[in-house]
């Protein structure tokens, strides 16, 4: 049945008289996992072959794509690792002048993601789609769409490699925006969510509805750009009715070489959640509101919070030298006994030199989290990202991330340093050293050492070999940034693409 669907979707691409494109993108990872030193035994000593094949095609106004995922495990440490192969994504779209129809898996975000944000994070990250349909109209001054479907998550958890089931929650919604004024864009959006699994079935069906509106101005007088959004949600969970509201705003003020960015956030018990994730034992979260935090800052709770941040940048040397200062203050659960006050300030500078061929970014900061007048968490951090162009198309890349942390009165260190030698069109050799001293019980790994070799054999084929122990996190290797899961062992990745037509 699935293969018939695949054929039905691809057939129009090759059968039409229009010029046709059909290509394959493939990633195969062969992994051998050893004891990763986290004290747990149900994620050690196994082999895995992870395959992701993406076929995309287009002919005239028609586009189509399918994704086939397969996992094969050797010596599975627990039943949570499952051999599997499936048609994970299938999508077909048709553009007719200003109209667009999409059937199958689609990503969707409303406003700034407070109400809904289903999108692919990166190559290896979370990926939940809405499996259904969307009808869109896009004119110069007006944009509108309606969508409906069931949520479809990747069966392979990107971090643990364990199997998880689809949530299958029903979401229907729509959005409209007006762009007819040169100085203002306004829009409204809304959705209705019906989880597949009710929290307490005997209390009736859970459901939630959310409505929101936003306005956005392009830079007024080339000086001030503003975005404002307000959202409301009504939930019915376990027989109880709840209401929630959210507000978000940002203002970007440019005064000559100085740029001031202001952000404010209010989330009053605002969340859009579906059925439980069978692996993580918590509900799927379909919203991804702004956090006010740095992009790599872990955010434990972003549902009942308020705060703001300010960032001032000063562009020197025609933008080649940009020092900046950032300050953020957030309150989680404001007014509650458990109110958590978070303060984070950091400064930094970005420098581009040698006609932009080399760059260096330096930053450092300080963070405190207080609860009931006690410091529960603290951090002093320093970061370096330095890329130095060398002769003969070589480059030296140094990335340092260090955090001196304090958690409940205990100090520990966490960080990662990457040193790489890169050559464009050829590849890179990178050494990685990480450390995390949070658990000093002696049976948990504190130092992580790994090596990464990447080889671009042709524009269509690249190999990456990794050996050792790695901490997880966002890393940029050989000019490509990805969110890496923690890993111990050896891995060979083969990434290929191939034009069939």
């Amino acid at each position, binding site marked *: 049945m699935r293969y018939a669907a695949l054929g039905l979707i691809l057939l129009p691409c090759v059968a039409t008289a229009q010029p046709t*494109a059909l*290509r*394959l*993108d*493939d990633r195969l990872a062969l992994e051998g996992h050893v004891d990763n030193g986290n004290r747990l035994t149900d994620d050690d000593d196994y082999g895995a072959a992870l*395959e992701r*094949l993406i076929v*995309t095609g*287009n002919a005239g*106004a028609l*586009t189509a794509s399918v994704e086939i995922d397969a*996992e*094969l495990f050797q010596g599975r440490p627990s039943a949570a690792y499952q*051999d599997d*192969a*499936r048609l*994970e994504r299938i999508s077909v779209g048709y*553009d007719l002048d200003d109209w667009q129809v999409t059937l199958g898996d*689609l*990503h969707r975000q409303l406003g*700034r993601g407070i109400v809904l944000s289903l*999108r*692919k994070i990166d190559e290896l990250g979370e990926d939940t789609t809405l499996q259904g349909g969307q009808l869109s109209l896009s*004119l110069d001054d007006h*944009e509108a769409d309606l969508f409906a479907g069931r949520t479809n998550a990747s*069966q392979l958890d990107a971090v643990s490699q364990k199997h998880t*089931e689809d949530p299958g929650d029903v979401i229907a919604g729509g959005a409209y925006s007006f762009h007819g004024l040169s100085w203002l864009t306004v829009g409204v959006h809304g959705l209705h969510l019906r989880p597949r699994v009710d929290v307490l079935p005997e209390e009736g069906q859970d459901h939630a509805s959310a409505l929101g509106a936003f306005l*956005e101005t392009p830079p007024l007088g080339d000086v001030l750009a503003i975005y404002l959004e307000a959202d409301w949600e009504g939930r019915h969970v376990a027989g109880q009715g709840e209401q929630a509201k959210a507000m978000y705003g*940002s203002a*970007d003020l440019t005064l000559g070489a100085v*740029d001031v*960015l202001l*952000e404010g956030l209010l989330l009053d018990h605002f969340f859009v959640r579906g059925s439980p994730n069978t692996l993580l034992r918590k509900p799927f979260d379909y919203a991804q*509101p*702004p956090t006010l*935090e740095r*992009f*790599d800052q872990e955010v434990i709770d972003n549902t009942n919070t308020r705060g703001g941040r300010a960032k001032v*940048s000063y*562009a020197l040397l*025609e*933008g080649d030298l940009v020092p900046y200062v950032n300050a953020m203050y957030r309150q989680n659960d404001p007014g509650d006994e458990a109110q958590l006050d978070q303060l984070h300030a950091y400064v930094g500078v970005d420098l*581009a030199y040698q006609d932009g061929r080399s*760059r260096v*970014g330096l930053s450092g900061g300080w963070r405190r989290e207080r609860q009931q007048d006690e410091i529960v968490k603290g951090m002093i951090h320093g970061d370096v990202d330095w*890329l130095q*162009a060398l002769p003969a*198309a070589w*480059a030296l890349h140094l990335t340092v991330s260090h955090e001196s942390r304090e958690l409940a009165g205990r100090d520990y260190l966490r960080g990662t340093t990457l040193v790489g030698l890169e*050559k*464009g*069109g050829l590849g890179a050799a990178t050494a990685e050293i990480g450390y995390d001293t949070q658990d000093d019980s002696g049976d948990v790994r504190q130092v992580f050492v790994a090596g990464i070799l990447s080889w671009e054999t*042709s*524009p269509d084929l*690249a190999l990456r070999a990794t050996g050792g122990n790695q901490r997880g996190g966002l890393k*940029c290797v050989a*000019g490509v*940034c990805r969110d890496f899961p923690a890993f111990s062992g050896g891995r060979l990745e083969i*990434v*290929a693409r191939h034009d069939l037509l």
Partner: protein
Amino acid sequence: MTNPVTTPSIRALLLAVGLLWTPTSHAAEAPTEPAAERPPVADFGLRTLDGKKVKLSDYAGQVVLISFWATWCAPCKQELIFLDPLLKKYGEQGLVVLAINTDSPKSQAEVRRFVRTRNLQMPVLLDPDGEVVRRLDPRAVMPFSLYVDRAGRRAHEHEGFSPDEPPAIEARVIALLKEPAPAP
């Protein structure tokens, strides 16, 4: 979507995929794909930072260099800094650079700040749903650049950015600009 199949099927799939790993060309040998082998690029429409609607087909007959980027991606930003003067140099000859931003809500407020700080002149398009990324950069690798020739075909694509690439990028752009525009 779960549709378990048998282990032999998985092995057959892996074997079939393995057969596709024959490389077809090498970057050093051809700056772009031969014209006859170029597939068409699907049209798309996105809004700019200022809310204006832009479609790829608006630039029919021109050479379009599409760069997918995010504010958290340092090599992406380095590439944009290089592409902006390239646009100024070759814009009158028919080069268009479209910078498609893929930031999530977490960092979306940083987009305009970076564009203003660097005074980028190229159109910066927003792809909040990630749907254009899904079509053109299916593995969602950053940075990712796509070269579209005057006939609307994919002439070249490239993952990552390294400091030695600007001469190759410029040579590729010059070669594409020299190709004749298709008859209307």
